[in-house]
């Protein structure tokens, strides 16, 4: 809330009404926000990162026909806590030749920006820390671009050649991949017509065909370019060149141990959820369910002033949002354990000669589409029923395209789910074949 000047703060928040009964004084807001950040935010983001780390190990295990962590707690869910305790008790090493000040500073520079982004992510129509950030997406891009500095400094200040190589790769990769990522974001923003994440969410509340990804073919393609570019910008495999273990030991965090190392780890996993959240807001309808029920009841409760209903709706919406983002995080993990790592020149080739021209073409096509084939930009729920054609009769070409895109998207999603399901089924029923190509004859029971 500090970010946005005093005139726009909190004035739309249902929760503000709920807690303060009106607009509070500025210092109350500052103190309250700090307390909220300390009590709710830091534990919540840490929890996201910890569950992410556990899920990654579990997914990796199952993809490699292993079990993964299963000792600490039920299905190993407490593994991250055990790891955290272990990292806390490790010796905190600083190399003698390192620049101590920068070495200590850079984990925070890498972690804090990712953490700050959560302030702007709308988990529900009102469940957002700063609801009046009109420049939401720009803020996110700006804050995330600081993260690079932390990683580069970590590599540089370690004064270790592996670290410096990792940092240089990081500098090339992240700075160049921010461009196609920004272009893909721009395509979705052009389709939605606003940078405000909450308003983008409200735009997509009319059911699955109003989600921005299904607006037109260009946004549909931008969804995939964004996914690839954001993987690279978050240095996730297959683009994990800055820390490629097989060549650079551990890349930029080779010299880090204990708690400082875990900050980089937390930053990566919190960042995975951040880029998935941006993707959810931009393309996949944010907190809205596929049938537009949340939007319907949101408008209804807002009209009747039913605060309790709105709070309940926000919580349900937050569940849907986290579900969508987690599905995307799962796909990121799936990619990591499926694809091999390209060389750095291949990575930069993909950025400069494939994704960047593609992004330009998509942006141009999207702009022309918006000029020549006007849809219903920013239709609120009240303007039309989701399944009634009356409100759409003037926009039949747009509606037709949205219908086709929705069908294509649903087919793709169903195909992906079916593929994963079949793989899981095969793994469960043919485990003998996967782990043990030529099964040994078992000794007869009772012989030992």
């Amino acid at each position: 809330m500090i970010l946005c000047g005093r005139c726009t703060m909190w004035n739309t928040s249902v929760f503000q009404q709920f807690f303060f009964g009106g607009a509070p004084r500025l210092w109350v807001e500052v103190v309250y926000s700090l307390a909220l950040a300390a009590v709710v935010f830091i534990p919540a983001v840490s929890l996201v990162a910890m569950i992410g780390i556990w899920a990654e190990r579990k997914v990796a295990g199952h993809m490699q026909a292993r079990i993964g962590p299963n000792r600490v707690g039920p299905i190993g869910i407490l593994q991250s806590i055990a790891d955290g305790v272990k990292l806390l008790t490790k010796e905190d090493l600083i190399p003698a030749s390192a620049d101590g000040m920068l070495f200590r500073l850079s984990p925070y520079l890498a972690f804090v920006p990712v953490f700050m982004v959560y302030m702007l992510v709308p988990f529900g129509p009102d469940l957002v820390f700063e609801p009046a950030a009109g420049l939401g997406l720009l803020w996110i891009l700006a804050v995330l671009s600081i993260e690079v500095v932390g990683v580069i400094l970590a590599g540089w200040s370690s004064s270790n050649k592996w670290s410096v190589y990792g940092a240089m790769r990081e500098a090339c990769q992240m700075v160049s991949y921010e461009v196609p990522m920004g272009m893909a974001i721009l395509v979705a923003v052009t389709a939605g017509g606003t940078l405000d994440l909450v308003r983008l969410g409200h735009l997509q509340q009319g059911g699955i065909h109003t989600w921005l990804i299904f607006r037109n073919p260009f946004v549909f393609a931008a969804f995939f370019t964004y996914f690839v570019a954001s993987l690279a910008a978050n240095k996730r495999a297959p683009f994990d060149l800055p820390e490629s273990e097989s060549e650079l030991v551990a890349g930029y965090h080779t010299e880090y141990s204990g708690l400082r190392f875990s900050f980089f780890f937390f930053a990566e996993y919190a960042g995975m959820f951040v880029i998935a959240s941006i993707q959810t807001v931009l393309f996949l309808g944010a907190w809205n369910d596929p049938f537009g029920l949340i939007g319907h009841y949101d408008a209804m409760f807002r009209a009747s002033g039913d605060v309790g209903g709105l709070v309940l709706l926000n919580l349900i919406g937050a569940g849907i949002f986290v579900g969508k983002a987690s599905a995307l995080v799962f796909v990121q993990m799936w990619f990591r354990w499926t694809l091999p790592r390209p060389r750095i020149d291949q990575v930069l080739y993909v950025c400069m000669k494939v994704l960047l021209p593609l992004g330009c073409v998509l942006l141009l096509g999207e702009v022309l589409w918006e000029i020549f084939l006007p849809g219903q930009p920013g239709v609120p729920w009240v303007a039309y029923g989701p399944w009634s054609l009356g409100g759409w009769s003037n926009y039949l070409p747009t509606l037709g395209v949205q219908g086709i895109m929705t069908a294509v998207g649903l087919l793709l999603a169903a195909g992906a789910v079916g593929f994963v399901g079949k793989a899981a089924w095969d793994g469960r029923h043919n485990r003998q074949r996967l782990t043990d190509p030529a099964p040994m004859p078992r000794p007869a029971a009772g012989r030992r």
Partner: protein
Amino acid sequence: MMLESLFYLFAAVTALSAIGIVLTRDIVRAAVLLLFCLLGVAGVFVSLSATFVAVVQLIVYAGGTLVLIIFGVMLTGHSPLHRFEPTRWEAVIGTVLGVVLLAGLGMAYGSAEFAKRPLAPMADAPAAFGVALLGPFLVPFELASVLLLVVMIGAGYLARRRKG
């Protein structure tokens, strides 16, 4: 009251890190202090309700230019912990330039008129900026893009693969 104290907080961050940039001998540390200086300036912009300028400041300078500076230092530095030792002449020239700039700023400060209260933030700042850039300020905007194009062609020329 609260807003003023936030302004002074950001101003203090900016000023202290700027002093640090001048005093430190380590180039990379100077670059990090420049980051904090830029963050402080962005904070000042925010407390003056110029959020769009603050965001652009972060994206262009903190995320872009600063990374380029650090990258340049890493590529050109001789040792990992390269130190910056100015000669006497460089110090003299730098001091003279600094004094001249400070005098210019002071004169501008004396002659300018400032709004007493922070302005209300614009509801739709990016749209207004876009309309202004493609309307009354189209020529300077396009000239700037031509300049960038020239720089890009120059970089491509320098980095081209030489025959033989």
